[in-house]
């Protein structure tokens, strides 16, 4: 119980800061920090979605960035056809009512098809094959010249929704922030549900779960698809935020960053990945803006820090902050 209360205050502090700071950034003319916060919140959604399968399902997927990319292209491709013509008529639109559901469905479908295959493997094979599917998606996009190939695609017109103006940075931020809150609540609900218990049980002891009568494969695939759908949604937000998308978003390095956020913050809590995203993005910024020559080599201390956390703080920063010396 103390643990739960401990996590409660971390959640509260992070969420309050994320709600309060951005308007202050705007009021004080710190547009850059608002940008950073927006990117942070979007990547936090992706990390929270990854944590559903990684932290609770024990499935180390190294291809989650592909889902971010799919979501972003689900915004970029319709916007491209809307401006330049071509493609089926229903696709030529900037309406968020089409783009967001498209992002979610396309990512869910990708997760369904690839997950159906990946989940037949275990351990290192699973990691490798999720990564391979993501790279396939990467090369697919690179090969489509109409959408810019490896040069990427500029989104000239952001998604249009009646209740939010994506070209207003603060509105955009709060749309992303509210989305994060909803995704967190959804993941927490799923994790505590009977479905979530099965998912966690299969992580702890797959053989036992099968002998109890659970079709472990079906439950994992479902979690994989749910996670994919959420990440696709984050991708649509990311496309709107950057207004420039390229296959590079799907690169395995991006997937690795999402994994680091999850592990850094703590994979055994719903809010852990948010903390991980905050620390990751802020540190990345601070270290890379150190004076020369330190700033050039910022990857070095950053990498060391990650290694230290992974090796010595089992359970991530959330555990570190809530530990009461009883373990």
């Amino acid at each position, binding site marked *: 119980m103390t643990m739960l209360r401990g996590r409660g205050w971390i959640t509260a502090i992070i969420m309050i800061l994320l709600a309060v700071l951005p308007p202050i950034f705007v009021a004080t003319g710190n547009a850059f920090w608002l940008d950073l916060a927006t990117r942070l919140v979007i990547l936090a959604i992706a990390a929270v979605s990854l944590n559903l399968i990684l932290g609770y399902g024990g499935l180390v997927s190294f291809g989650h960035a592909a889902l971010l990319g799919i979501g972003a292209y689900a915004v970029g491709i319709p916007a491209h056809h809307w401006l330049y013509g071509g493609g089926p008529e229903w696709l030529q639109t900037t309406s968020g009512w089409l783009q967001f559901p498209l992002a979610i469905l396309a990512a869910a479908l990708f997760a369904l098809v690839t997950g159906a295959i990946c989940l037949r493997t275990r351990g290192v094979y699973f990691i490798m094959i999720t990564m391979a599917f993501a790279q396939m998606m990467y090369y697919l996009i690179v090969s489509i010249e109409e959408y810019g190939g490896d040069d990427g695609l500029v989104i000239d017109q952001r998604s249009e929704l009646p209740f939010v103006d994506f070209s207003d940075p603060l509105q955009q931020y709060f749309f992303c922030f509210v989305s994060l809150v909803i995704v967190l609540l959804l993941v927490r609900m799923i994790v505590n549900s*009977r479905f979530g218990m099965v998912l966690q*049980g299969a992580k702890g002891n797959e053989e036992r779960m099968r002998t109890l009568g659970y079709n472990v494969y079906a439950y994992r695939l479902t979690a994989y698809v749910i996670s994919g759908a959420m990440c696709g949604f984050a991708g649509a937000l990311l496309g709107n935020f950057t207004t420039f998308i390229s296959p590079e978003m799907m690169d395995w390095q991006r997937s690795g960053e999402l994994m680091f956020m999850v592990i850094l913050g703590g994979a055994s809590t719903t809010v852990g990945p948010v903390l991980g995203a905050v620390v990751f993005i802020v540190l990345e910024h601070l270290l890379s803006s150190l004076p020369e020559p330190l700033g050039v080599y910022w990857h070095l201390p950053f990498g060391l820090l990650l290694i230290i956390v992974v090796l010595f703080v089992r359970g991530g920063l959330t555990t570190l902050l809530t530990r009461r010396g009883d373990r």
Partner: protein
Amino acid sequence: MALLEIRNLNKSYGGIKATDDLSLTVEPGELHAIIGPNGAGKTTLISQLSGLARPDTGSILYKGRDISSGAAHRRAHLGIARSFQITSLIMEMTVADNVALALQAREGHSFRFIRPARKVRHLRDRALELLAQVGLEDKADRPTHALSHGEHRHMEIAIALAAEAELMLLDEPMAGLGTEESGQMVELLRGIKGRHAILLIEHDMDAVFALADRISVLVYGHIIATGSPDEIRGNEAVQHAYLGEE
């Protein structure tokens, strides 16, 4: 009709015949014990019955239907539960969660996303009842890894009971227990005997002879004798092959 009928089962691992032309029946409500030296193939047999290992040839009939190629999770739904020789629990979950998951498995699918699992009253209540039956009710909310080996053995039984299976496959429930704990386990098994058919694997001869309706002796994957406890005690081949060494 026998509840379980095994016909000419064979299974090899590389050059080792772990199961060798094995035939055996379990009648409804019967406690059928299998004894045999280390490496005789007892666990391999249970694994083939529960669906975690696949036989090379032969058939497994449950209520007259051949189930030898069905997936493990399907067999559980047919009414077959197993316990593990090497404790197989979900260590990071609480004791009650482990039992609740066994109960939940019986209620059709678990694609239920909204209600918190721990607030489903009947699962919680029944889990506590079962834990009381094995003497672990006051440990219900402890993490499983914090319990002792003996308590883990009792959890295995509570989980097997949760399935309300017609056939329970128990793989050395007394493995690693002290004399006192073994005595408790014998009493526990005596209490559930008759309500479920049980295929019991056990090295503890006192327990086996006290509990079993029938005993089969397994040596090198093959059954060399089956009979009542008295018959087995008097069987010369058995004494020669197995009991004599004790």
